[in-house]
């Protein structure tokens, strides 16, 4: 018999994340993972001051970078629409920025389905922003499924926070 061992070598280096790596997980309140372990690196934007209406920090904290969804749904409720109208207004006034919309799901679902569900949510936000006049070329979507919860308890308190779409501001007028 042939018992030649399969050599499995530790992969030393992976390619670095692309420069538009979103990976912010909707940290909100102007606190953005500064590269860090998941670091997007170059895509990270100077957040500026919350009191400066032209800053991403103001967008995150005051306009509101996040909307929430009910279980297994991607429908935008009135509260979400209000927040997104504010986002659209801000984006329309600040053309030097573009945005990546992250869709997330709570942990009550299978992994791959939740990826698809997060994409639905991100896309619902994207479509609404486009309907409010934001150029499609400035908006991209990504789904993290259930991989990046914001709140870590296993009850509805946390699940309702995790079923979210987060608009992450980045530099650049889009592609």
């Amino acid at each position, binding site marked *: 018999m042939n*018992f030649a061992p399969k050599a499995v070598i530790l992969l030393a280096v992976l390619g670095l994340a*692309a420069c538009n790596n979103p990976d912010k997980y909707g940290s909100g309140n102007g606190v953005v993972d500064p590269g860090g372990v998941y670091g997007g690196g170059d895509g990270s934007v100077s957040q500026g001051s919350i009191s400066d209406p032209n800053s991403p920090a103001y967008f995150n904290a005051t306009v509101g970078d996040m909307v929430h969804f009910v279980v297994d749904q991607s429908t935008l409720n009135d509260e979400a629409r209000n927040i997104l109208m504010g986002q659209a207004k801000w984006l329309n006034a600040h053309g030097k920025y573009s945005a990546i919309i992250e869709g997330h799901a709570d942990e009550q679902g*299978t992994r*791959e*389905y939740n990826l698809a569900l997060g*994409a639905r949510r991100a896309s619902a936000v*994207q479509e609404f922003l486009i309907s409010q006049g934001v150029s499609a070329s400035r908006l*991209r979507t990504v*789904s993290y499924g259930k991989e990046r919860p914001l709140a*870590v308890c296993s009850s509805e308190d946390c699940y309702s926070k995790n079923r979210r779409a987060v608009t992450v501001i980045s530099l650049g007028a889009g592609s």
Partner: protein
Amino acid sequence: MFRFALAALAALMIGPGAALAQQGPLHIEIDEGVIEPLPYALPSFVAETGGASEMAAQISQVINADLSGTGLFRQIPENAYLQRFSSFDTPVSYADWQAINAQALIVGGVSTSGGKVVVKFRLFDVYSNQQLGDGQQLAASPQSWRRLAHKVADVIYSRITGESGYFDSRVVYVSESGPKDKRLKRLAIMDYDGANVNYLTDSSTIVLAPRFSPTGDRILYTTFETGFPRIKLMNVGNVSGQLLPEVPGTMTFSPRFSPDGGSIVYSLEQNGNTDLWKMSASGGAPTRLTNSPAIETAPSFSPDGSRIVFESDRSGGQQLYIMPAGGGEPTRISYGDGRYGTPVWSPRGDMIAFTKQAGGRFFIGVMRTDGSEERLLTASFLDEGPTWSPNGRVIMFTRESPGAGGGAQLFTIDISGRNLKKVGNAGGASDPAWSPLLP
């Protein structure tokens, strides 16, 4: 329960790794649901060369762990044995083994020389006073000694159950560490029993749901290394990988090989809608398999490659559907309460394993390919992602515990619903995919 035929067993020449189907006096009929494991004796294998005793003890240990771990066999402790083997060829005193109620006896010898480990073994049917099958000899390099042990255990399992074994196999999975909201994930491979862990990626980016190629030499998985979910194809031998081509502005995930390894079925998301697509593993234009506004994902081929089972929420919640491998009208097969996802076709072709969600709980279950005879095998806060052992007798899956300190671990369960076990002693782990039996 055990079935004992009276007919004398004809000795068979048994090629290594062959699937065995003979039935003899010593036989477990697995389908009848084994509740009382078969007692066997395995005196620590005889060291036939100086310096081989540690290797002999280790190999004996792994064989015992394999056999006992199935729940079908129980080792009688060595201190109860009446006969000692000073040599591999010591004649068996059947009365001594009958006296301690051993039904099977496994005698082996181990030698090490010239950079090789050689294992010899014989299996005896104690109550028929005869050897079961021919003796066998296997050789490997010293670092592959565990594979030798697994091979021996596979032959023994196979001779007694009449089915092929699953011990000489590996599992690719996602190794997890770190807190729940910043979990680090890296691709890893281990032996089926959790030994010999090797990492295939570092933890710089999220990786999900790997799958082996039918020959086990390649792995498909989803990676966020570009910032967006993309499918990567990795060569296990040299750990080199390449991203599969994709349409800009889309997400691709949930990749699976066809049984011939020639094509890849996967989910592609565009404008929020996820459908199933297929591409050749050697390149070429992808073709679309489903076209609905619902989520279609988690495909799995039938072993003959003719059909694909997948999940879709086109009826409202996740349910299981089967369609021709080239696309076409799907037939819904799951109709119970709750949601059904992650279907995986069994290697025997007769069943589909799935994740079910109902009443705030998760279950791993199996059903016939027409959706009948649904049986739930496990239940917990969060069980998901079943994968079949190469012989279709055992299912491995992810079990996640709740709360801020919750984490994922791998478990196995027999398809009878018995013998729930945690796999290995490693830290967090999820998304297992079982390899075929190694050559």
